[in-house]
């Protein structure tokens, strides 16, 4: 699913100020039926994260927190069963799973003697049963299961997707008889930066030599690709030479501009692989 910059922009345009709920996602699918669901979700998630990064700070001023907390208290005071916290997050255009800890922390500050640590908060988010207030526990839980971009469940899904694609890639490498070292083996050897796979014998993909393969179970947009280039791909290049990145959910075509330099992008496992021929003399 390789999109041109223009196609990508069209999708991104539809995602401005859309709350990260399953309803929004459903609408997006209807709007772009030709795109795969996973690609759309990945783009949605990335766009939303960019949006949150931009606006994150304003939700964490003490005035904002106080105002949200009061609105929350008023809301649950009227009806504890209503989705107060979720609606509050949507109204102020903030991620529900991120709004939950704000209120939770404020609540704990009020009810406990010692201010809560980050790990306590995180643990409560993972398991709202630990939240001492039943109403708040339900509200938090509701936020988390309804947020499709943030929260422990979403994190887990993303992690699982990443893992699954690495496994898929490993199977494909095995199937192609390409021997490799995986991340764990590399780490055990003391490598400081480790791509998903280093080929023990380099191959050529579409005419480009590659030494390593990195699997990315996401859509490659400009922002994430630049970050990956800086933090990972160039670091791999610096150590192991040119390599291949597979964005399983596609990428913006224009980003595949470092082929000559030694970073090749693909949206699937390559078919055009040339291996070193051993002379059978």
């Amino acid at each position, binding site marked *: 699913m390789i999109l041109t910059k223009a196609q990508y922009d069209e999708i991104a345009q539809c995602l401005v100020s859309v709350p990260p709920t*399953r*309803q929004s996602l459903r609408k997006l699918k209807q709007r772009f039926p030709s795109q795969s669901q996973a690609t759309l979700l990945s783009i949605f998630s990335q766009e939303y994260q960019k949006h949150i990064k931009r606006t994150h700070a304003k939700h964490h001023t003490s005035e904002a927190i106080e105002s949200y907390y009061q609105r929350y208290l008023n809301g649950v005071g009227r009806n504890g*069963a209503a*989705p107060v916290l*979720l*609606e509050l997050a949507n109204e102020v255009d903030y991620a529900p799973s991120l709004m939950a800890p704000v209120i939770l922390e404020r609540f704990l500050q009020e009810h406990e003697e010692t201010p809560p640590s980050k790990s306590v908060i995180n643990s409560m988010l993972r*398991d*709202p*049963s630990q*939240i001492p207030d*039943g109403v708040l*526990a*339900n509200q938090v*839980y*509701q936020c988390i*299961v*309804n947020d499709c971009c943030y929260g*422990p*469940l979403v994190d*887990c*899904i*993303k*992690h*699982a*997707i990443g*893992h*699954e694609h690495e*496994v*898929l890639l490993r*199977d494909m490498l095995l199937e192609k008889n390409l021997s490799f070292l995986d991340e764990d083996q590399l780490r055990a*050897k*003391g*490598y*400081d*930066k480790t791509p998903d796979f280093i080929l023990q014998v380099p191959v050529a993909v579409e005419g480009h030599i590659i030494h390593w393969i990195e699997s990315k179970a996401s859509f490659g947009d400009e922002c994430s690709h630049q970050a990956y280039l*800086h933090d990972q791909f*160039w*670091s791999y*290049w*610096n*150590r*192991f*030479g040119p390599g291949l990145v597979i964005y399983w959910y596609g990428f913006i075509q224009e980003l595949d501009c470092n082929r000559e*330099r030694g970073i090749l992008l693909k949206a699937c496992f390559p078919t055009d692989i040339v291996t070193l021929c051993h002379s059978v003399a």
Partner: protein
Amino acid sequence: MAAVLESLLREEVSVAAAVRWIARSAQSSEDDPGEAAALSSLRPLRKEFVPFLLNFLREQSSRVLPQGPPTPAKAPGSSAALPGRPGGPPRGGRGARSQLFPPTESSSAAAAEAPSARRGGRRRGPGPGRERGGRGPGGLEEGVGGESQLWPGGRRSRGSGSPGSPSLVRSDPPNLSNLEEFPPVGSVPPGPAGTKPSRRINPTPVSEERSLSKPKTCFTSPPINCVPSSQPSVPDTSPWGHGLPPGCRSLQEEREMLRKERSKQLQQSPSTTCATSELGPPLPSWTGNLTAESADPARVSSRQRLELIALVYSSCIAENLVPNLFLELFFVLQLLTARRMVATKDGDLEPSPGAPDSLESPLFQSVHDCVFFAVQVLEHQFQVLSYLDKGTLKLLAENERLLCFSPALQGRLRAAYEGSVAKVSLAMPPSAQAVSFQPETDNRANFSSDRAFHTFKKQRDVFFEVLREWEDRHEEPGWDFEKGLGSRIRAMMGQLSAACSHSHFVRLFQKQLLQMCQSPGGTGGTVLGEAPDVLSMLGADKLGRLRRLQERLVAPQSSGGPCPPPTFPGCQGFFRDFILSASSFQFNQHLMDSLSLKIRELNSLALPQPEPSDEDGESDVDWQGERRQFAMVLLSLRLLAKFLGFVAFLPYRGPEPPPTRELQDSILALRSQVPPALDVRALLQQGLRARRAVLTVPWLVEFLSLADHIVPLLDYYRSIFTVLLHLHRSLVLSKESEGEMCFLNKLLLLAVLGWLFQIPTVPEDLFFLEEGQLDALEVDTVASELGLDGMPVVDQHLLYTCCPYIGELRKLLASWVSGSSGRSGGFVRKITPTTTTGLGAQPPRTSQGLQAQLAQAFFHNQPPSLRRTVEFVAERIGSNCVKHIKATLVADLVRQAESLLQEQLVTQGQDGGDPAQLLEILCSQLCPHGAQALTQGREFCQKKSPGAVRALLPEETPAAVLSSAENIAVGLATEKACTWLSANITALIRREVKAAVSRTLRAQGPEAAARGERRGCSRACEHHAPLPSHLISEIKDVLSLAVGPRDPEEGVSPDHLEQLLGQLGQTLQCRQFLCPPAEQHLAKCSVDLASLLVADHIPVLGPPSPRGLERGQARRLLHVLLSLWKDDFQVPVPLQLLLSPRNVGLLADTRPREWDLLLFLLRELVEKGLMGRTEIEDCLGSLRDAQWPKDFSEELATLFHLFLAEPHRPEPQLRACELVQTNRGTVLAQS
């Protein structure tokens, strides 16, 4: 001096005698007494003859090559006696030297004007020629001699020619007066006081108009007459003898004297003999006319005189009496390709009939004379020419003037061309390849702390980021290294606090330097002038590449002329600028240490051993390898030495030499006590002794070329220069005898030394002054040994790679063919090295001993390849042995450590005690086993080495030789491995066990159970189960629907739920894609789902049951979940959450409350052994503490009692369940 030439011309002295006289101070017995007498009277002038001759020729040619002096000649005018030498009182300033052209009345204005104009052009000071002085990005602000063009960063602006005469640019003939093609190699005196030595002799007393109209095409260094005309000349009482007046050192004055002596009163202004001085500003004879005059042998004016001078000149060249062989060849080729003679105003050029064979009349009266002279010299230099590359030979052989003047020479050249295999290929521009990460040197164990390790990790990335940015942008106009990257580099260097980090970074830097600047990026390069070959070589699909290459080839390339200053071309510029921008003392010091070490290592590398000379194909193949290896080592050494020189002399480098003698003396006193960065003198002496000059001298030259002005004056380095001068003189090319150095080896040394003598920082007078002391100096070579020097290790490719300026000859000839002026700099790209592979492992130094001696003796009579093979095998097997021990013995011990640790943990409880203590206990138990390593290592080497040796040696190797070779290999490998193992095995075991302990202890953490014992898929599994991420996502959707908010039409169908749980089962059975975190979340979600089922909170789609699930359906689903929990989940399922207040609280919202499913669930949990009764009781107990509505509390209490009341046997429980099932919703009421 003219007198000597005169006497030659008058045939009073034979050429041979003259050359003998010049070359040796003592008279030879061969000399005719008459000759001897004639010459002995001139004795004091002896060493001034060659500079005189060179200057004379340059001056004479100035009319053919009119704009400025044609060819740089770094020759002092004449009597440049050293201060304090007998025969002449000390002179005023250092380097005060003869002036060819002291200011005369007619040219005084010009003389006053010209220097400033020139200086302006060459220096950055304000002046009319300022426009050339643009400082390049990152270049040394005040580089050597203050000349920006010494540093490649300083891109010279191309527009030459003053605004007044733009047409001159195009119409220039190929000549050297163009500053851009021939950057000055001289340095400029700072002020009026500087009677500055000049590099190039400018024989042209330029007229005022000319100096104004063409300030920049005036050649290079300051004119020889540096003393401003307003000041009186420095009194010169140099040893002329003969009653010549002081200050009489210029050719013209000398001529003047000759005239007097002969009582010839030719009334002409001295300046008129210099054709160029007569030129009007627009140079009418040149503009718009590029066609060359045809040269006719029949029209040569004074053959005999030309022949004679050509012979003297050639003899000087042959005896290495000229500083730079190739410079002279260049000059000669210029004469050969001179286009036309410049006409003079007054017809002074007509040969004066009275004295046809004297110096009175110009030597070159026409183009015919020039060509004749050039061809004469070329005939004498044929041998050198025949060793030039094929392209140059072709151009020479095809030169129609040469054919016309000497068909014989042309024939020899053609034959040489046809027989030549000396294709000089052009390497592809190297692309940056990063230094690969090597765990052996780069992993955590090599760093002092985690922090240092991570800092270095970041630095590596920053370094390459900077490098990439440089690659992308350094060619952009206006981009500046320092501005663009300086602060980033310094920030990075700032993080290198620990010395150990510096050494890591320096290693990276040095490796990258070698990799980028020495390797062409894999491809072998293409061949000059062999387009069809190139095409077939590259194949059709490479056409694009070829096109790009061609573009690069035809793109104008600024070239440095036949003796360019030291530069840092291409990627080298990056490393130079990096060093400058980093400006880190620590870095420089570490770099120098590292470079010195590597230089020593490579310089002493055992290179090709002399081999019994059999000329069969096999040794030919071997020799190619030897040559390649030699070239690689030599090029690496040159690169390293250049950078060492750059860094070592960096602190002392200044724009100019110290202005006064006093200052210079004090600096000398200071510097003379600074030990050299690398004892190059010792290495040079060793090299000469071991007859490895061909390896040592080229890199030493690179090192010295970056020295500052003071260096050559220091005793230490002065002695090096003396040795080099001696060496230079001894490399007579025509001498070919047993034990002599190979021709191309000599040629390489002559080229690099000649180049060195032209470097601005090397005093001009050095070459001619030191000469006198040479005889005393003898280098004692180990005559018996035929060192590298006697082996044909240098080929044309290496020669041209090391001395790209030799390619200027080809450019000059090519520009003659193309008719272009050569101003665009030609089309030949700089040749860069083409060798690729790493430098190979250094053979191990074996300990001495009888066995070692025997082994040495054994190898002595075997081909060197045998030795290399054995050493290589031993090195590799030894290294593999260590790796094998790590993977087997050490790995076993680590496994033992792990199981011991597990036992320890079991007996001592979860935490197992202090990790450090644990480690100690384990190590004390395990390290003694390390002793086995030696036995196992020995076995390994014993087993593996012979096979490897056998595979690598020729089949026909005699059995005895083979078995000896095998045994030696076994011995060496064992020695290597056991030395390492006995020193390191304990530390290695410790390290590995430590890592294992921390791994195990970490594994004891909260997630340990999750990782515990994990089953894989069944063998038949085809991994088609739904992906875990998909399932979590699906279940999350159900949960979010159940929790709400939801649209009215939203809901879940019971079938979907059942399907979902079915898929969950499949996924849990196929472990292929499942990772622990995902499984944990699935477990937790399944518990949440169960709670929602129990509380009847799942919104069901469709008409049959609009409110909730059928009881039966819910029960079925719970059954599925229970069995998944029991059988399929491999992580702990948080079942206690079923009884968390939040989940139980879900029931509080439902009306009527239905507790039967919960009770059913609890009973099943107990029955399946998923939860213990007491555990459930505890949960229920704590539930009572929560705040509930009153009625809910009561019902909860009832449930609690009901559950407690049940007997602990399974049978009645079942019945109770059935009971509950039949009376749905009424259980609590009944009880």
